């Protein structure tokens, strides 16, 4: 994955290989450190457990997915400060979509109405069943037989109506979630597209442009959420989405544990799938080559006939897709759409990419590195908690690591510009 193509022997190989493996080795070192610290600490060893690693994976999933998109942006020589608020916007859009049943466009039913019907019918059926039971318990008296059979008939009809209504609800629900999710991911892409258009047409650095869009997306999210958190009806959230990043044992559905496969939440699997896909695109597609060329030297790219503005728009839009996905993850963790839940995320996202060995001046970066970077941050947080270190210490450690990663990059740049 990433850029390295061969086993090392030559100077360039070493450099690329070390920049890809480096963060991974750093991750291993950090894990080792905490394992030892945990072992030395009195009490049960809880760090090196499947549960702990799953917790780590799940807690960092949102950042990791968004960091995949940010990797592309940073390799291309740009940066996106609006990532955090855009994620919140996507999560809010998703919540809003579920709440207001955007799928209605397709299923042409009314989820609200039908759900009410179901509730009414359920209470009716319950009442009838209770009445029937009372009758049976009290025993059959003359004249009661007719009442009982009429009750039974009524019960059957209402039960059928209930089943019908439930089926209708399920049909509607089948449309609601996918529509809302598509809308949410599309929002992410549009956010990215706007960033890309502004960066390529205005002569303003991406840092400032995305600083501006960061506030715009925050405002949009608050507007959609009517300045509060959007809480969709729990019933409208599909179970798989609820369990997307959850670690709790969930009820089985047709014998399959929902939301996880082989004990690992689907969300984590999806992160790896996205990562593999992105690594393939970066290495084996023309777009990937253009991204690296653009970040390494924009003038050279232009000279070679690459359409620089279009490529920039494509880069930011592509990253927007990952932002949309991250919004999905965010929603899954919170089950609500909170417009302010993204502020500050962008710094963690960028930190993950930078710790992973990408150069902020463009032209370098790898998927393995970014995932390692995200993992390192999560491992440190988790390890510090396990060691009962206070929060401020965690923040300081993270800050030190970020500075160290950027220093390493500077040293490498220095060696290039001899």
């Amino acid at each position, binding site marked *: 994955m990433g850029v390295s193509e061969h086993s090392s022997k030559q100077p360039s190989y070493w450099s690329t290989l070390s920049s890809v493996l480096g963060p991974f080795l750093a991750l291993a070192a950090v894990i080792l450190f905490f394992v030892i610290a945990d072992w030395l600490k009195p009490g049960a060893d809880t760090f090196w457990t499947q549960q702990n690693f799953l917790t780590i994976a799940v807690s960092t999933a949102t950042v990791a997915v968004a960091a995949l998109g940010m990797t592309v942006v940073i390799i291309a020589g740009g940066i996106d400060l609006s990532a955090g608020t855009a994620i919140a916007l996507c999560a809010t859009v998703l919540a809003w979509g579920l709440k207001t049943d955007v799928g209605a466009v397709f299923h042409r039913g009314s989820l609200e109405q039908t759900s009410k019907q179901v509730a009414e019918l359920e209470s009716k059926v319950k009442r009838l069943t209770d009445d029937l039971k009372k009758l049976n318990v009290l025993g059959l008296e003359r004249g009661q037989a007719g009442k009982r059979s009429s009750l039974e008939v009524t019960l059957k009809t209402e039960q059928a109506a209930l089943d019908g209504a439930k089926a209708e609800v399920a049909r509607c629900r089948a449309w609601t979630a996918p529509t809302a999710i598509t809308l949410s991911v599309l929002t992410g892409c549009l956010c990215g597209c706007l960033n890309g258009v502004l960066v390529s047409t205005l002569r303003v650095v991406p840092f400032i442009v995305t600083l501006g869009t960061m506030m715009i997306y925050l405002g949009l999210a608050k507007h959609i959420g009517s300045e509060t958190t959007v809480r969709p009806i729990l019933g409208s959230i599909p179970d798989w989405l609820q369990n997307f990043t959850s670690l709790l044992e969930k009820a089985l559905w047709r014998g399959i544990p929902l939301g996880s496969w082989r004990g690992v939440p689907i969300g984590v699997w999806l992160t790896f799938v996205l990562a593999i896909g992105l690594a393939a695109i970066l290495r*084996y597609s*023309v777009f990937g080559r253009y991204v690296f060329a653009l970040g390494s*030297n924009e003038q050279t*790219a232009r*000279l070679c006939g*690459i359409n620089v503005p279009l490529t920039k728009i494509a880069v930011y839009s592509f990253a927007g897709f990952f932002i949309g996905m991250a919004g999905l993850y965010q929603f899954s963790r919170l089950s609500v759409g909170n417009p302010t839940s993204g502020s500050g995320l962008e710094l963690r996202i960028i930190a993950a990419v930078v710790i992973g060995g990408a150069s902020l001046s463009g032209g370098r970066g790898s998927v393995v590195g970014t995932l390692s970077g995200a993992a390192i941050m999560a491992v440190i947080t988790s390890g510090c908690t396990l060691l009962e270190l206070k929060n401020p210490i965690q923040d300081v450690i993270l800050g030190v690591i970020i500075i160290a990663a950027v220093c390493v990059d500077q040293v490498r740049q220095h060696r290039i510009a001899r």
Partner: protein
Amino acid sequence: MTTLLTMSAISKRFGATHALKSVSLAVPAGKVLALIGENGAGKSTLMKVLSGAHAPDTGEMTLSDLPYRPTGPHAARLAGVSMIYQELNLAPHLSIEDNIMLGQERSRFGMLDRSAQRRIVGEALNKLGHGDLRPETPVQALSVGLQQVVEIARALVSNAKVIVFDEPTSSLARDDVQHLFDVIRRLKSEGLGIVYISHFLEEIRELCDCYAVLRDGESVGSGDLGGISNEQIVALMVGRTVDELFPQVPHEPGEIVLKLDRLCGASIPKDVSFDLRRGEILGISGLVGAGRTEMLRCLFGLDETRSGQVTIAASAPSQSPRARIAAGLGFVSEDRKTEGLAQTRSIADNLTLSRLAPYVNYGWLNLSQRRQEVARWMRVMEVKAASQDQFVHELSGGNQQKVAIARVLHQGAEILLLDEPTRGIDVGTKSQIYRLMGQLAAEGKAIIFVSSYLTELLAVCDRVGVMSRGRLKEIRPASEWTEEDIMSVAVSGESSK
């Protein structure tokens, strides 16, 4: 003749690379010593040792018969050894006076003593024949030639005994070069020792008194310039006799492939018109700022064209590099560091960046197919590199330029626009490039060759045009030009006929 500075048996290794092997150098007082060598011969490393940036592994240096062991560039300057580099070390926003006195200010009780500084600066500028420069002028308002004078003045103020000039004329116009020579002659008469590093043998002949040649980190020859010919110098540099500095490959011009009709850019060029034939090498000469690079960039679609027609094989492609590449144009930029090549990418990436389509299968790149093609091109162009995945910035200047040219050939360009393709390249690679240009012309490609080096233009091109102040003044067959003629048209804008 007193010897001012000696370097004896200097050796320096960097890991596995043996950059200097027991090199010795003697700089006499009041003379100009030419330090000659190909790129990679060890000249810069030797100068870095001299200026204190590197400490030698073995060897000794003496300055005015006293041991000289600088701990860094500042210490070297204090001791009297000043370096003037190709990229000038000036603070553009500061004034002449501030720049000259930078690091050696005169102060009284902690406050700047401007009157003392004025006096010192005035003296230094006078010695250099520039007493008329006003010390308050911000340096960025000066021409490159005058900026160089400011740096030399700074060296004088620091009581330099030895001044080293590293490729000072690469970006200077002819006038400024003569000017610099005058200044250097003045320094000579003051008794300073000058070390002059340059690729241009004619300049060395004109200015220098003695020479020292480095090859592969060793001193291979030194002495008086009067007693050696240019061919012998080149032979020492390259280690073999270069049969021809300008190898000729016979080629015949064919039909017209490119037509420029009154091309005007945003400010320059103005009204440039000419025809280019298949199999022809057209040279474009002119002073720095005459509009040669701007004309090529307009032609290639990199810069805006205000008016005028560009016709390539009967079609007029639109104004973007992409369209011009598709029409068969290929452009090699004069600045391979910041534009021509993506320095942090591999050779393979740079070589194929302008045409990746042939390697795309079902939307994905077939990297192994690309690997084969790149390997073939590297063989054809004789690019010396450890592998095609090496980063371009690790190659020497000559090999980098070969990669830039290879890219243009790989994309299938039929009309090549070469902007100073041999700048900063060693003699051996230069002659390879001249031979390559001849071969390409023989194959039917058309070449526009922009250069400031008149000797190579007249030797390699079929026709030479001269630009002045944004206009193309005259085109003649190369045989009908002399260097003086070209210079007079370039300078005065008028034909000497």
